[in-house]
């Protein structure tokens, strides 16, 4: 069955460092992959979408890579700030199918 894995342990980093979050998937070939941010008690907010034919995508301090051979996406936040502290959800998705989220990784950026 399809499986999405994100590190369930919180990632703690120091302000100013680069945070790197990992999303691994098995048993399907997503046409694209999305990353969302979720703050406690709030709904997810869309951040970035990367398609299967794209290796890398950037938006301000965010960078996403998509390796269809490794079945993995990496999500980077450079020059991290305490305001970046949140849970980050990945959603690798087959074309035309509904959104399926990974369990998310909680990021804590300490001043």
């Amino acid at each position: 069955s399809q499986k999405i894995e994100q590190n369930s342990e919180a990632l703690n980093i120091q302000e100013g460092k680069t945070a790197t979050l990992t999303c691994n998937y098995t048993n399907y070939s997503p046409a694209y992959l999305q990353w969302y941010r979720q703050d406690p008690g709030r709904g997810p907010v869309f951040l970035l979408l990367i398609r299967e034919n794209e290796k890398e995508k950037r938006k301000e301090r965010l960078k996403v890579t998509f390796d269809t051979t490794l079945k993995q996406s990496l999500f980077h936040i450079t020059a991290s700030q305490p305001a970046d502290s949140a849970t980050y959800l990945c959603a690798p998705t087959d074309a035309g199918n509904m959104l399926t989220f990974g369990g998310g990784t909680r990021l804590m950026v300490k001043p």
Partner: protein
Amino acid sequence: DAMVIQNPRYQVTQFGKPVTLSCSQTLNHNVMYWYQQKSSQAPKLLFHYYDKDFNNEADTPDNFQSRRPNTSFCFLDIRSPGLGDAAMYLCATSRDPGAVEQYFGPGTRLTVT
């Protein structure tokens, strides 16, 4: 300039007492979704509407129903809530069906006593 609005933000109901959660959107999107999210878990899709066409996920319990009277509004009805239905319920919209960018509301936290 709220785009996806959910009311109420917190709802308490009794075991077995029907409850309705509401969602409205100002984006004029064709698709509206309902997700259930339990603590420290991923949001799980319950069903979605593409215009008036209702699409239920295979593993969504019959206890959960939905109505979409018009483009802007969508309701989640839980006919007989059990303790296991306590969760955050998230409404989302998208322009097109499938898994393109979705806009989520703030959620309704449901407590079952």
